[in-house]
């Protein structure tokens, strides 16, 4: 299969990126100057459905309502304030250059595209860097209490993959504070009657009529009722698919269902194999484990990663002298040291553990040590910077990181792949826009720290308000159908049949059992490192597991009430289908880049070996059961020259 893909490397006509012509630095201005506007009176007549209330969804819903559109916003939690963006800890990047350390929009763009291993679209990334400064202004105006210096100005810190300090933060709760800012802006619009907020709703399918997205079917999670919503456009802001691995740092409700349903209705899924394994998480401690907890990357500013030189060194870490320790990141990557990007740091930890130098009971951990920083800066400063993270670590593990090094190991954290979108954030289904982590567009094969918050808010506050107008102005409203249209009835029937099938299956296994098994397959074969044989066998195994799911799934209770197991079963079914696509995509990409590391393609020093000649592309898959069709978007680099990505 990979061979045929390789031979058919031509740009698919279905993937028009719509990148404006002109100098990279001027593209967004050119776009804004030329885009059609929707008059205030017409805005009122347009109804926009926003699915998800995280950074992308809440910021889009609030902004569009502020512009005068009628907005309905859906979320699966009991309140929009609980979307998973809330858990982001470390910070948000912007090219403000307040520290005067040489940052520019260009540098933020360059670091991001290099960090993504040259597998993202130049124009999208440049725009992201360009609007980054507006995000900080907006958040401060909303009352987001970012950290400040004694003189009253905003404080910055460094993050992986950058040599400047451009990360703004609010203790270790930056995602929480930015989300609450967006949630409050959304609440302002809800109070004004411009947004109708529907919590405890799960989008279970997309309705397409006249070749455009015209609405969705949502399940009311309290009553179980399937509800129809028609709109002039659908904005999917439903986050990533990291929970396919079962164990990840994602929240329990994070899922791929809405995105996968859209995929099955015609939206291409791009680069599903690009997943981010975050280097600093609390290691797994038992079979019952339901999720993993991240320790912010910001800790690598002051923490040093090491393992004992001698795999048989059983001493307590604080008893191991300096000359018996290997600070392997500092040794291997002297110029970036502990602040190498996430993919590099994760693989390095895996290598140490694979070679037997891992620590702790399971031997699947490395030390993250603050002793030197505490000596240099004092415990007070460290407490001020990371106090809440240290507390969280102690609560979960019972160890005190002020006295003994943390033990950390990589865990699934973020997914760079997602639904394919053009420069306007529109998917291959007209009228379906995809924002934030749910799309594929800005992070290439690896995302830099503090860039997810930036992208979610860039898409919602500053990109979609322009690009949505272009779509609405260019479309004939008479194409629009209402909830009584046949297409709604048909899609609703399919959704209800699927639920019945799960509930009335005479099986014996819970959704969690299948989910854990899928997670194990993906982690072992489509995780931190991949190879042909493993991918081929996992593809087989996942398909078999999917068949078994439909034979043996067991969900008690009924569909007409709150039923968590029923929700989870539907999501696991979609994760199973996605899992195959992840393996297939990883199999096709015969190179190593960013988070996608194929063991067959590495340099003699064990670094990722990219193949720009064959794979400088976006793989966008069109749904066709177990035989998806591959479409390629060739990536062209006009302003940067893809270089070997080195942090040495």
């Amino acid at each position, binding site marked *: 299969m990979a061979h045929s893909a390789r031979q058919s490397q031509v740009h698919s006509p279905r993937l028009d990126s719509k990148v404006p012509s002109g100098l990279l630095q001027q593209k967004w201005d050119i776009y804004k100057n030329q885009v059609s506007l929707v008059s205030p009176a017409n805005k009122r007549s347009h109804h926009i459905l926003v699915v998800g209330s995280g950074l992308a969804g809440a910021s889009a819903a609030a902004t569009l309502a502020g512009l005068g559109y009628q907005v309905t916003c859906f979320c699966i939690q*009991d309140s929009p304030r609980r979307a998973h963006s809330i858990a982001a800890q470390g910070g948000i990047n912007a090219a403000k250059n307040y520290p005067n350390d040489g940052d520019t929009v260009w540098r933020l763009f360059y670091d991001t595209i290099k960090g993504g291993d040259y597998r993202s679209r130049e124009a999208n990334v440049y725009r992201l860097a360009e609007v980054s400064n507006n995000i900080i202004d907006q958040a401060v105006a909303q009352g987001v209490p970012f950290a400040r210096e004694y003189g009253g*100005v905003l404080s910055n810190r460094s993050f992986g993959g950058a040599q400047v300090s451009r990360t703004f933060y609010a203790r270790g709760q930056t995602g929480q504070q930015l989300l609450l800012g967006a949630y409050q802006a959304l609440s302002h619009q*809800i109070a004004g009657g411009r947004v109708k907020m529907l919590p405890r709703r799960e989008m279970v399918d997309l309705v397409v009529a006249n070749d455009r997205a015209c609405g969705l079917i949502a399940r009311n999670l309290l009553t179980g009722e399937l509800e129809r919503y028609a709109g002039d456009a659908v904005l999917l802001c439903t986050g990533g698919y990291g929970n396919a691995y079962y164990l990840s740092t994602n929240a329990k409700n994070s899922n791929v269902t809405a995105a996968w349903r859209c995929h099955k209705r015609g939206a291409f899924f791009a680069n599903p194999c690009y997943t981010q394994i975050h280097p600093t998480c609390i290691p797994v401690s*038992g079979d019952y484990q339901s999720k993993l907890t991240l320790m912010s990357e910001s800790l690598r500013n002051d923490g040093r990663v090491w393992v004992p030189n001698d795999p048989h060194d059983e001493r307590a870490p604080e008893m191991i002298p300096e000359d018996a320790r290997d600070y392997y990141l500092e040794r291997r990557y002297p110029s970036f040291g502990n602040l190498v990007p996430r993919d590099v740091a994760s693989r390095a930890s895996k290598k140490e553990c694979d070679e037997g130098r891992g620590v702790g009971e399971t031997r699947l951990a490395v030390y993250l040590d603050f002793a030197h920083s505490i000596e240099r800066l004092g415990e007070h400063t460290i407490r001020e910077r990371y106090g809440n993270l240290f507390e969280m670590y102690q609560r979960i593990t019972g160890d005190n990181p002020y006295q003994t090094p943390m033990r950390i190991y990589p865990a699934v954290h973020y997914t760079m792949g997602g639904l394919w979108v053009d420069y306007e954030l529109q998917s291959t289904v007209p009228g379906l826009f995809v924002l934030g982590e749910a799309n594929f567009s800005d992070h290439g094969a690896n995302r830099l720290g503090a860039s997810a918050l930036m992208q979610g808010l860039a898409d919602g506050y500053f990109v979609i308000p322009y690009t949505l107008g272009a779509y609405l102005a260019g479309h004939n409203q008479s194409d629009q159908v209402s909830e009584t249209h046949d297409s709604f009835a048909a899609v609703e029937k399919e959704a209800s049949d699927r639920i019945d099938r799960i509930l009335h299956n005479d099986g014996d296994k819970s959704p*969690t059992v299948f989910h854990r098994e899928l997670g194990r397959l993906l982690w072992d074969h489509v995780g931190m490192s991949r190879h042909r044989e493993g991918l081929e066998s996992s593809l087989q195994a996942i398909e078999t597991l999917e068949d078994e799911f439909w034979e043996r799934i067991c969900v008690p209770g009924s569909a007409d009430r*709150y039923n968590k197991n029923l929700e989870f079963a539907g999501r696991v079914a979609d994760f199973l289908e996605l899992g195959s696509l992840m393996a297939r995509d990883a199999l096709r990409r015969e190179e190593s880049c960013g988070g996608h590391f194929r063991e067959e393609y590495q340099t003699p020093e064990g670094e990722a070996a990219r193949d720009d000649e064959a794979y400088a592309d976006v793989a966008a898959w069109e749904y066709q059961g177990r035989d998806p069709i591959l479409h390629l978007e060739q990536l062209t680099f006009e302003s940067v020259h893809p270089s070997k990505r080195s942090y040495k």
Partner: protein
Amino acid sequence: MVINLRVWRQEGPDSSGRLVDYTVNQASEHMSFLELLDVLNEQLLQSGDDPVEFDSDCREGICGSCGLMVAGIAHGPQKRTAVCQLHMRSFKDGDTITVEPFRARAFPIIRDLVVDRSAFDRIIAAHGYVSVTTGSAPDANAIPISKDLADDAMDYAACIGCGACVAACPNGSASLFTAAKISHLGLLPQGRVEASQRVMAMVDQMDVEGFGDCSNYAECEAVCPKGISIEGIARMRRSYMKGVLSE
């Protein structure tokens, strides 16, 4: 370890509930309390019974979805810890633990341990924001804010909206929740502009929702997973009185 649970089971908002006894034989001290409930639910599923419904999402103490009365205490016996981060090492082998939902007039029970906390969203919608639309912000460093003030504001902004304060309060008051938002925004220059309208609208909404008054029990502060101080309530009352007097 073996843990005995007495869990509140209730079919729906209008049905009556009761405590039901269960035993989990395969508990471990490394488990979180919610993972213990996961194990119980797998057990129930295997025996064909309905699992115990409860809300949870991030399981790292920040989203505010989870909230249970564990052994009579909102979020359980460990201080400054949401129930998702409460670990079984806080309990002993053979313990019997009662698990109930957050109870308050303004938090109707939906099913088992799941309650409706949408009243909190309506309090925020009453004026828990700065009225700034997208695009109209000045440069972020245009208004210097002292570090102390920003830190104080952050202490209040840390509220996760879990509702433990309400569940712990003998009056079922939402004063700590409301005061946290009023303090966060009111301390910052950006939020001061509308401070007076904000406090009036939010306090009034709190009453509309059926939350009780504050009588300084301070039970809320004791159970708050983020350690939010009741000083905020004093601030809220002062500015509310000022608002009333200036009307």
